[in-house]
């Protein structure tokens, strides 16, 4: 097995650690997709693929020594700022502690879904990029480093180190499973995010899907998808028509209802890709008599906050604007739909940024759905969900917010006995879907090839294990992922790449759709394995 020592990270080998498909962990033969496509020649001429043969960022190759020097000096400038109070008060303590106190025991390695799925390739160790960060920081910014020089173990800093490190910051899903097992409490996920932040906030390096067509578009148009208020209202009209077709009942989805008890905010991608999810919310809330509304104001109908994954300022701009939209509507609280990162972004991470009249209560939809189901506020017939179901735990809501039992309590009430099966490693020990930290929407260059085959591989294995006794396609099965990005990863990886739908008849979707499907008052099933919503 070729090894990649940290000190050799800047070597001039064309591809430092090529992904070796034969080393990827085993899947059943019929589930294995074709080998990943190599990068196109036209890309190789222009962009850097030297980490592992993939690119998430499309970093243009430097053409002159001056350009190379600019890359290195920009990185060092950013690294210094990362450890200053003024520039990084938001995460200085966790960054400093995780930089200083790692004992290099590698306990984090076995916890990492990416490292394990890759067949344990060195560069994907969760502490590999952190170790690079530590050694470079120590070498260039500490008195010992000035004294010890290369004896710090840092690689010779050149543009390749910087570019590879930037790419490597996008080979971790920020699921923080590694932090949960660290005996000291070191958080490699955090350090990875800090690296992303350095690259974005100092050098303007970030995946286009997260920045240019992510947060920048979000702030400009009011939604990460670019959906403007008029288009949003059109979508609602479409959803109302579909609901009528499905249920025979015309539900008027409340919009901009001043002073409502609940402002429900979805990931706007739901309206475009999975309209059945906001439709199911409308059906369930209507039947339960909830006092709720959606907002059609810019920033008010979009829950996502991609800044969470790479840039503190973009993150805070969006979070504050979203809560401001709720404040203007005078709602009593904000409830975030089935979107993990959006829930965490606004409920916990934004908490200390919000003061005065922006202190509006904010919570996940899962406890509310549990209250509706367990409180008998809708009439349910579990036998309408008479098919095997497994549950994915979105990292952001489960490990990072502790929401574990509501979704399980719901499933036990809306499924017949024996139909719910846990995946191996569930709850706060879950594995990421592979779409975390923006991966689900990052489709540039050949990055999706890596994401689907490596980052989502563990989830593919888990789903196959959970349905191990009924993989035959004659048995319809449901992979329940109550998170938009996790559904995005399911669509791209499990369905398109691994072809779980064709091979095993596995349907994927959210949790509220299953609740709607169990509602006794609906004339027929809400879910369908045959037709799209």
């Amino acid at each position: 097995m070729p090894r990649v020592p940290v000190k050799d990270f800047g070597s001039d080998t064309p591809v430092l650690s090529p992904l070796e498909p034969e080393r990827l962990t085993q899947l059943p033969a019929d589930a294995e997709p074709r080998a990943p496509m190599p990068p196109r020649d036209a890309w190789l001429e222009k962009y850097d693929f030297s980490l592992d043969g993939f690119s998430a960022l499309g970093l243009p190759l430097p053409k002159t020594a001056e350009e190379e020097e600019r890359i290195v000096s920009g990185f060092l400038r950013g690294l210094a700022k990362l450890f200053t109070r003024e520039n990084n008060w938001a995460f200085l303590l966790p960054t400093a502690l995780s930089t200083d106190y790692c004992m290099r025991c590698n306990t984090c390695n076995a916890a990492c879904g990416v490292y394990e799925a890759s067949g344990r390739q060195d560069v994907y160790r969760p502490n590999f990029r952190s170790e690079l960060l530590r050694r470079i920081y120590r070498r260039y910014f500490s008195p010992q480093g000035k004294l010890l020089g290369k004896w710090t173990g840092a690689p010779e800093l050149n543009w390749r180190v910087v570019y590879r490190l930037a790419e490597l910051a996008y080979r971790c899903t920020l699921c923080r499973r590694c932090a949960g097992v660290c005996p000291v409490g070191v958080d490699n996920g955090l350090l990875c995010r800090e690296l992303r932040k350095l690259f974005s906030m100092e050098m303007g390096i970030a995946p286009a899907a997260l920045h240019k067509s992510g947060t920048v578009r979000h702030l400009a148009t009011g939604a990460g998808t670019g959906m403007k208020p008029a288009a949003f209202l059109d979508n609602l009209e479409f959803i109302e028509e579909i609901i009528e077709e499905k249920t025979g009942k015309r539900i008027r989805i409340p919009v901009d209802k001043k002073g409502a008890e609940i402002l429900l905010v979805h990931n706007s991608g739901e309206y475009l890709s999975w309209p059945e999810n906001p439709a199911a919310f409308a059906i369930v809330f209507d039947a339960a008599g909830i006092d709720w509304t959606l907002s059609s104001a810019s920033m008010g109908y979009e829950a996502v906050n991609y800044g969470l994954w790479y840039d503190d300022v973009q993150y805070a701009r969006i979070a504050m604007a979203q809560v401001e939209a709720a404040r203007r509507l005078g709602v009593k609280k904000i409830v975030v739909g089935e979107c993990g990162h959006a829930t965490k972004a606004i409920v916990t991470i934004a908490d200390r940024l919000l003061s005065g009249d922006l202190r509006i209560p904010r919570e996940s939809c899962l406890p509310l759905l549990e209250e509706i189901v367990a409180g008998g506020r809708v009439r349910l017939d579990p036998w309408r969900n008479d098919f095997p179901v497994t549950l994915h735990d979105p990292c952001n809501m489960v490990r990072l917010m502790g929401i574990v039992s509501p979704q399980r309590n719901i499933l036990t009430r809306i499924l017949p006995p024996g139909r719910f099966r846990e995946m191996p490693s569930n709850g706060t020990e879950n594995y990421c879907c592979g779409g975390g930290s923006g991966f689900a929407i990052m489709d540039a260059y050949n990055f999706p090839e890596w994401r689907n085959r490596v980052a989502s591989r563990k989830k593919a294995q888990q789903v196959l294990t959970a349905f191990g006794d009924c993989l035959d396609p004659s048995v319809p099965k449901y992979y329940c992922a109550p998170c938009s990005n996790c559904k995005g990863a399911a669509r791209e990886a499990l369905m398109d790449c691994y072809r779980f739908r064709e091979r095993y008849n596995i349907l994927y979707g959210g949790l509220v759709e299953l609740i709607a499907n169990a509602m006794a008052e609906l004339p027929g099933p809400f879910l369908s394995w045959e037709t799209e919503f």
Partner: protein
Amino acid sequence: MSWFFTGPFLYAAALLFLAGTAYKIISISRMPRHLRWELYPLPRLGAAGSRYQQVDHGRSPREISRLAEIGVMAEEILLLKKLFANRRDLWFGSYLLHVGLYFSIAGFGLVLTEAVLVSAGLAAAPASGSLAARVLGEVVIVAGIGGSAAGLFGAAFLLARRLTDPGLRDMSDPVTFFNLAFLVVLFASGLLAWTADGPLEQVRTHMASLLRGRPGVVPSTSLALAMTLSGLFAAYLPFSRMFHFAAKYFFYHRILWDDEPMHGGTAIQRDFAGYLRYPLTWSGEHLQPRKAWSEQLSSRDDAHQG
């Protein structure tokens, strides 16, 4: 020379340890509060582990179980539970190393206490033959020798693993090897000193002389070496990554388990209002250089240009 290293040098080392520890803890404590970054379940929230599983979580009283939290901390400190659960192959060596350190520190603490009490006339010297003094003397010997033996075995095991396991070797920087080698030598010197001073009489005598401010000469070269190395270790400890024993408190209580919500009129609110006044100097094109955070956050129009 021996007098210098077992006398003035030990005073300086003790001073460095205390000053270094204080400096590190104060530096960490003074770092700004950060945005929340917990990892669940939170032990002090008991079986539920999280407030976010409830509707209107902000309205429910926060029931805190300090006992549950202490239980988790005790498991970690005394048993290294996470390492046991997740890295069993390193646990045995690491556990011996930690037990070795705990015992050695306990032995040192007992000798120090004994010397203080004897100097103050509050206790009989171990040589007096009193039962309490004899028992204490035996406990000190067991702690010191047992600690050194366990520590030596544990540190040597970890060093050997690190040299032979390619994954550990590749991820280890020179300082990692230095620290383990230092611990091996330190514990070995402790055992060596015991061969020269089985009942630890010389240790007691020297400790008393240090406390009186008139350090004598340590007759045994091996004991002098062990004392010198212990001084070096103490002086180095707060500035090394082995200070994780103290940093761990902040990792857990200030980061991973810190779900303290913002409330109006609290220190958290005042602190954050202050942080938002900091000017930031990041150079990204989507940012406004040298403007305060609060201005950056209200400048959405500028962000559109990024």
